[in-house]
């Protein structure tokens, strides 16, 4: 099952990164003896202690969030020792607080929370922790580390950085190259982080200049509208980075309508339609930078390990890490097959 191995690989690879500092301590152990940490109990696929995991997420109103729910559910189903209590998703802060409080009252063993708004849900995270229910904070981070036992999430700055580096390498040696950026919803901090990362990466390539940036709204409709304007504004450019594959459907439509194919496009997030277009390789879309929804599956793994008082496999510690930042891999024609099963609709 390539799907599972790739997810595990992702989890373990990134887990190692997140706790890199701790690992250095272990590798410097030069004793001939077996390192004591080798026999620490790591969570594996074998059934162990029964764990009830409560899961609360926002309303799955677009592809990525829907994939988050699917990933959590299918991962939990894989383990016979895991019972998943999943709440109806809500974008309303008050409603989500209520749902999490219900899960606390039900005395679930571990909570996995993807807050609609990280800052606003900090208090209920603290409440769960005080009630001795450890919280895995998924992606949108709480205000204080006291509100969660472990945070796992994507890297928005890294997305921009990797997109910038990919484009930079592709345009290497091209004098006076120009790029444009189709950003996501400007109201969100993550959009600013993605843009910052992209700009920082481009600083490494003095031959490239970003000539335009417009913000869409993560929707197909806004992607089409903003891209059509960008194409009219820039009669010639070499590369485009689009923050989000959902709005990318609209952006690609606008590009097709304008009859343009004189540049390369890099997407973001990792939608199935983007993977398929990259694999086909007959359009401008050449790559996409991941913001992996598989993080929800990893969160279930972490919650299970926590409930069974185990560490995670592939790491020396007795406990799961406190913070895990996932890597925003670049998926292009060469590795798209591997990622295809993780693509969301």
């Amino acid at each position, binding site marked *: 099952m390539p799907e599972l191995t790739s997810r595990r690989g992702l989890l373990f690879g990134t887990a190692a990164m997140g706790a890199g500092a701790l690992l250095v301590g272990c590798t410097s152990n030069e004793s001939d003896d077996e390192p004591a940490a080798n026999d620490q109990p790591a969570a594996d696929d074998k059934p162990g202690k029964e764990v009830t995991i409560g899961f609360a997420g926002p309303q799955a109103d677009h*592809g990525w969030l829907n994939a988050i729910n699917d990933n959590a559910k299918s991962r939990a189903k894989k383990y016979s020792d895991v019972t998943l209590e999943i709440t109806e998703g809500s974008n309303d802060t008050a409603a989500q607080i209520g749902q999490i409080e219900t899960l606390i009252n039900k005395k679930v063993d571990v909570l996995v929370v993807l807050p609609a708004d990280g800052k606003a849900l900090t208090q209920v995270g603290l409440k769960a922790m005080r009630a001795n229910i450890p919280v895995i904070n998924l992606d949108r981070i709480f205000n204080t580390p006291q509100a969660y036992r472990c945070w796992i999430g994507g890297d928005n700055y890294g997305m921009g950085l990797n997109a910038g580096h990919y484009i930079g390498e592709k345009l290497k040696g091209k004098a006076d190259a120009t790029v444009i950026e189709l950003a996501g919803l400007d109201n969100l901090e993550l959009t600013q982080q993605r843009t910052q990362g992209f700009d920082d990466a481009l600083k490494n390539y003095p031959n490239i200049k970003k000539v335009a940036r417009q913000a869409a709204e993560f929707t197909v409709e806004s992607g089409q509208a903003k891209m059509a304007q960008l194409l009219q504004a820039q009669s010639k450019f070499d590369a485009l980075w689009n923050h989000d594959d959902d709005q990318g459907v609209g952006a690609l439509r606008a590009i097709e309508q304008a009859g343009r194919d004189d540049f390369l496009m890099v997407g973001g997030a990792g939608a199935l339609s983007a993977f398929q277009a990259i694999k086909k390789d007959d359009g401008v879309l050449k790559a996409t930078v991941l913001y992996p929804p598989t993080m929800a599956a990893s969160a279930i793994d972490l919650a299970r390990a926590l409930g069974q008082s185990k560490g995670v496999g592939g790491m020396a510690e007795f406990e799961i890490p406190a913070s895990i930042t996932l890597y925003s891999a670049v998926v292009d024609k060469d590795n798209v097959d591997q990622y295809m099963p993780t693509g969301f609709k």
Partner: protein
Amino acid sequence: MTQHASPPRDSTGKVPSAGAAPAWRGLMARADVRTLSLLGVLAALILIGGITKPDEFLDTRNLQLVLTQGSVIGVVTVGMTFVITSGGIDLSVGAIVALASVWATTVATQEYGFAGILFTAVIVGVACGLVNGVLIAYGAMVPFIATLAMLASARGLALQITDGKTQIVTIPSVLDLGERDAYVLGIPPLVMVFAVVTIIGWLILNRTTFGRRTVAVGGNAEAARLAGIDVRRQRLYLYLLSGLCCGIAAFMLIILSGSGQNTNGNLYELDAIAAAIIGGTLLSGGRGTITGSVLGVLIFTTITNIFALNNLQSDVQQIAKGAIIVAAVLVQRRTASTT
């Protein structure tokens, strides 16, 4: 806001039964000044666009782009103008566009091809309009509340149908209509639909009994009832009309974006209301102008276009848009009151 108590007027602002010639002429001139001031704003915008980005802005392709981008919201605004003229409001237009566009792009609907998509989009729009109309006309619900309820449920149903997923359209005949090859004499099909809807809307509002009744109901519903107009049936028809426009707009959006998504039509209600109001339609009812609404839509679309061409970011765009709405209304009021 002294117009409240005045007798019903038709769309140009004149009193239908006006016998006094000077008053008639004064009002006529006032309406013209209103339209002229809108044209002035549009001309100023074109000047700004032409100066800041001469090559990109003053270009046939850009004209096609501005008209295409304005066509979907334009059709919605025509329907909205009727509803507002009658003293009502339709907050559900964006949600109806979303619901119609996702219902029309499910795998099951797409099996029926072009006709299936068009039929479903229009029928869903009309059905939502029917529900709005029945609740408001015969359920005696306040339009604000009834359409707010429709907004919530239509968005919810759209989300339930899509499951948050983007539904990509695979019917070539639908997609082709959004491509350059489909342009006739350089006019995109979507723009033609917009033009046809506008002309029909103008004719209905200004040249038919239905239009005069709409204005009468908006001016003074009780007086209209005493004059023998079936106010409730008129209201039902008006929300049906708005729903129909949303259905057509949904089909246009499907052609434009090549997909259906539950986030479609986001904040259309505000855009359509804003365009109608700066166009000169009275929010309290009794006066409506299709010409003004269309100019309002074109002003908004042109602003967006100029901002994008000049690479201004969304924060600046939003601030400027707000300021321009206020300025446009103030200029209109000033020019209208000095004549």
